């Protein structure tokens, strides 16, 4: 096994000599987690709103103060009539306008129902959606508290119905996705590049003409990136747990085992790419376009899979990242055990076996 050890040592030397790439590979996940965690929040923070109160009674004032006391909204303007709504949006003063119909309290008392109109600035769709659902949530809560303890019900109907996601913390949604993306990037892309590099520089010929076995060449190439992936995994978990308070409610050992499985899947994908690609550029393009983009866009960590048209949903099924994200979310957020994720795990295992088998078969021992 001496020659194999020497080979792995040489691979580590490559990695260390190319310190720029290594800094990027270690720095990127850190920056991504922090960026996603702090900058790209899905939570609502002090959205400017306007209120058009046609009723100006006790009820509308109560509801208004409840909305404002939530800390999510800041009242920028009391609007006098409908014509001012458009202007307020166009000036960018407000992102949302809440309109109470006239005779709000009276209607509520007599008929048991009243209407609120919520208008949002949909040029920022994410924000609009969130503001909308937050507002609806608060209104719903308000009407429930009115009805509580009384034998009659008060219903305030908001124009649009959406469920209020009470604990919407975006970093919790992003961390599993980032883990999938980073592990995919390092394992698949770097492996495919490091193998094609030998091809491009002509050293692969020499290696193949040497007594090294093909599987030793592959394993040796993969080893440093396996280690690097594990280092990154630790980093991502550590930052998300300490900085963002992300819980790991399930078993840590199970979590790491599942991550190791996903890394193996990604590594075998990388080997497969390298058997197809003739140059480093091609390997990089295939990894970026064929792996990274679908992983980021279709694995369900940015856009919900349920909302995709069926061809994209179908594609998402063949992405290892999709299954990995489901597993990780289950273990970290819901704290479920293996019995709840065994199906997804089986999918990942079969993908890995298939990819590894295919890439070993395709890896040419001759030119």
């Amino acid at each position, binding site marked *: 096994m001496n020659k194999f050890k*020497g080979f792995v040592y040489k691979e580590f030397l490559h990695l260390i000599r190319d310190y720029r790439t290594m800094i990027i590979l270690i720095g990127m996940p850190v920056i991504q987690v922090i960026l996603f965690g702090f900058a790209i929040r899905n939570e609502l923070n002090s959205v400017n709103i306007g209120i058009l109160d046609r009723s100006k009674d006790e009820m509308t004032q109560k509801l208004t103060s409840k909305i404002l006391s939530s800390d999510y909204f800041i009242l920028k303007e009391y609007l006098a009539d409908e014509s001012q709504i458009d202007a307020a949006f166009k000036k960018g003063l407000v992102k949302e306008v809440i309109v109470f119909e006239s005779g709000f309290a009276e209607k509520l008392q007599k008929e048991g129902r009243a209407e609120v109109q919520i208008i949002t600035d949909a040029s920022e769709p994410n924000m609009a959606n969130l503001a909308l659902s937050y507002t609806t949530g608060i209104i719903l809560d308000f009407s429930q508290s009115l009805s509580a303890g009384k034998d009659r019900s008060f219903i305030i109907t908001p124009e649009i119905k959406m469920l209020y996601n009470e604990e919407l913390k975006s970093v919790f949604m992003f961390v599993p996705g980032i883990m999938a993306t980073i592990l995919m990037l390092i394992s698949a892309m770097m492996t495919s590049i490091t193998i094609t590099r030998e091809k491009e*520089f002509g*050293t692969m*010929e*020499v290696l193949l003409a*040497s007594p090294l076995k093909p599987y030793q060449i592959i394993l040796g190439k993969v080893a440093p990136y396996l280690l690097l992936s594990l280092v990154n995994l630790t980093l991502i978990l550590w930052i998300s747990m300490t900085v963002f308070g992300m819980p790991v409610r399930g078993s840590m050992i199970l979590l790491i085992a599942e991550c190791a499985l996903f890394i193996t899947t990604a590594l075998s994908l990388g080997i497969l790419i390298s058997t197809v690609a003739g140059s480093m550029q091609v390997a990089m393009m295939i990894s970026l376009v064929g792996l990274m983009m679908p992983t980021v866009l279709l694995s369900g960590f940015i856009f919900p899979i349920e909302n995709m048209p069926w061809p994209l949903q179908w594609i998402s099924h063949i992405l290892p990242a999709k299954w990995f994200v489901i597993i990780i979310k289950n273990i970290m957020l819901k704290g479920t055990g293996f019995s709840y994720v065994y199906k997804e795990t089986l999918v990942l295992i079969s993908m890995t076996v298939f990819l590894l088998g295919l890439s070993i078969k395709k890896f040419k021992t001759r030119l």
Partner: protein
Amino acid sequence: MNDNIIITEDLTKKFGSFTACDRISFSVKKGEIFGFLGANGAGKTTAIRMLCGLLLPTSGKASIGGYDIYKDTEKIKLNIGYMSQKFSLYEDLTVKENIEFYAGIYRLSTKEIKERSKLLISELGLERSADSLIRSLPLGWRQKLAFSVAVIHSPKIVFLDEPTGGVDPVTRRQFWDLIYKAADDGISVLVTTHYMDEAEYCGRISMMVDGKIAAMGTPAELKSSYNVGSMYEVFLHLARGKNE
């Protein structure tokens, strides 16, 4: 056992309808320097790749060091050295690391690796550059080092595929000194080149034209049989012959 290290018989390689090597038969003795000469695309590299186990021949027979190239590929790999057309050292590793790496994959023991790399570095006069990256060495030095690394495990035969491409004449001469030294140590050398002056350095030569061996013999024999003064003229004669 005879002392022929390489024996080939009607070795042929086809890529689709194109025949890169057409029924090549030759033999190389122990310690002999055998040259493959020919224009680009004449089939020299294909022939070497088949013998190294990198390409599977379409038909024909060949044995290296008594091992069959179809069946005993693994044993052959232990007994050959190979220097490819492209540069075969790692540019981001140091001289020493390259030597130790190649010595390591040829199953030399740690002690042997140390001894041989020390000897090799001092023979090439590279003591001061032992810890610098290959990238920083001049091309000529790299080529000499690549050759020394290819024979570090004392193979029975070393294959050199256009080893002196882009190297200046002085360094080329030094390179050939290394080849002679290896041959003196009993290592057979199979070298391809399209430099006709290098042909004069070889013990025996096979001239390849369009995948076939057009002529074979010592440089002196070839020159006298075509009644010309230099290998260059022999080559022109053969190459022109094919066009007529």
